[in-house]
């Protein structure tokens, strides 16, 4: 081939989002390590017209060379990618990282099946409940209208007695203002970016989940790279992964400080509430386990106990 290899990277979230910035950093590192022979263009904000659930397939077919993919939304394509969005399976960054390392061989195998290579993965800051009224027990969740971002979140809140709704992110702020919904299951980072303190008052960091976002490359594109180029990519991926895990945690903590400064009360769950949350989460974990294949089930069982 003549000239540098050019690759498109589809980024689902906006240019200022944590994961898109990670993808841009990755692109810069790749350019550096490959001495300018691999150039990656990051297309932020889903500007290539992909929505999410189809991304495994889209990368598989090479419609786009690379993409960042929220694992949870492609669980319908490959069951194992649902692990990181299971509620309350892990409750800290350390636990989440351990789970990721344990599950990584399974993720890599699944990616391989979909004709792609997993380059790196990093977590969203953990989601909690941003609400109007203070939530201290499942009784407070009764009938509350909460925007959730995936199937698990909806089932979890339903099990807690709430009324989960899904809606496009663009409608969330207005719907909060108008009272169509009164709470959101999301991270401090998103609450900060959405200026939710203008419409909501409380945050309960229930450490609901540490959902992973991965970046994959189509294998046809991958094999078209030279061994040196591939090595440069892997090196950049390892750097980016380490940086993003650290960033995720600092950003979550900083975002929490900012929303507190803006008047959102942050309060921890007590033991009784934690037990209620765990019970609701358990139902979803067990349901998920039923459909899991052998290796996946073995892994889950270790974390369930």
């Amino acid at each position, binding site marked *: 081939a003549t000239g540098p290899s050019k690759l498109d990277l589809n980024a689902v979230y906006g240019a200022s989002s944590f994961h898109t910035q990670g993808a841009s950093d990755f692109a810069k590192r790749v350019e550096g390590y490959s001495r300018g022979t691999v150039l990656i263009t990051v297309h932020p904000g889903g500007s290539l017209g992909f929505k999410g*659930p189809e991304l495994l397939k889209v990368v598989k077919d090479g419609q786009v060379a690379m993409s960042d993919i929220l694992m949870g939304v492609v669980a319908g*394509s490959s069951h194992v990618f649902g692990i990181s969005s299971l509620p309350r399976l892990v409750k800290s960054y350390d636990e989440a990282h351990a789970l990721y390392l344990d599950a990584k061989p399974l993720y890599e195998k699944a990616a391989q099946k979909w004709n792609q290579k997993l380059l790196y993965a990093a977590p969203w800051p953990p989601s909690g409940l941003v609400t109007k009224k203070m939530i201290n027990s499942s009784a407070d969740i009764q009938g509350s209208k909460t925007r959730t971002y995936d199937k698990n979140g909806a089932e979890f809140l339903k099990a807690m007695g709430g009324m989960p709704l899904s809606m496009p992110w663009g409608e969330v702020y207005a719907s909060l203002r108008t009272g169509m919904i009164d709470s959101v299951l999301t991270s401090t980072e998103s609450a900060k970016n959405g200026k939710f303190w203008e419409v909501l008052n409380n945050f309960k960091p229930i450490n609901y989940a540490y959902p992973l976002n991965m970046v994959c490359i189509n294998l046809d594109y991958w094999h078209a790279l030279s061994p040196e180029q591939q090595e440069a990519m892997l090196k950049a991926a390892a750097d980016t992964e380490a940086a993003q895990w650290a960033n995720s945690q600092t950003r979550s903590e900083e975002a929490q400080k900012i929303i507190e400064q803006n008047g959102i009360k942050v309060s921890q769950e007590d033991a009784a509430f934690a037990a209620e949350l765990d019970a609701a989460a358990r139902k979803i974990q067990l349901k998920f386990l039923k459909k899991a294949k052998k290796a996946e089930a073995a892994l889950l069982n270790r974390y369930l106990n």
Partner: protein
Amino acid sequence: MKRLIAVIEACSQAGGYLSGLFMLLIVLLIVVEIIARTLFNSSTLIGDEYSAYFFVVVVMAGLAFSMKEQAHIRISIIRGRLSRKGQRYLDLVVLAIALALSCFALYHAILMTYDVWDLGMTADSISETPIYIPQLVIPVGLLLFILQLASDFLRRLLSSPTP
């Protein structure tokens, strides 16, 4: 040949009715959702998802019908200045391009739907609907559309240039 054209137009018409039916089903689904929410404080949880699927039906089943009814818009500045004969040739060329594009789209829509079925992809929602089911509507709708375009093409080809 006239019978063929008549059969195709009947199919397009049926597509129009199907499309209308699903439009009404969307209304029904949403009304049920509103009633569930306001009166019973609950939710169907599939309202958004299924109204979107129904919308796919509305659009895809309606394409051929609206082509038959000449509801699709195009810019006719140049066409309007041509002679009858010129218009006929232009229409034939334009229809041929449209046919080629639709066949290309159909082929890849079939591939996509087949793949999605083969890979067992399901929606990331509580219903876990297999995605190929709503996607099947696309190749079917495109096929109807192609038939309608072909029938328009034939009609123009057969009509005598100077009526």
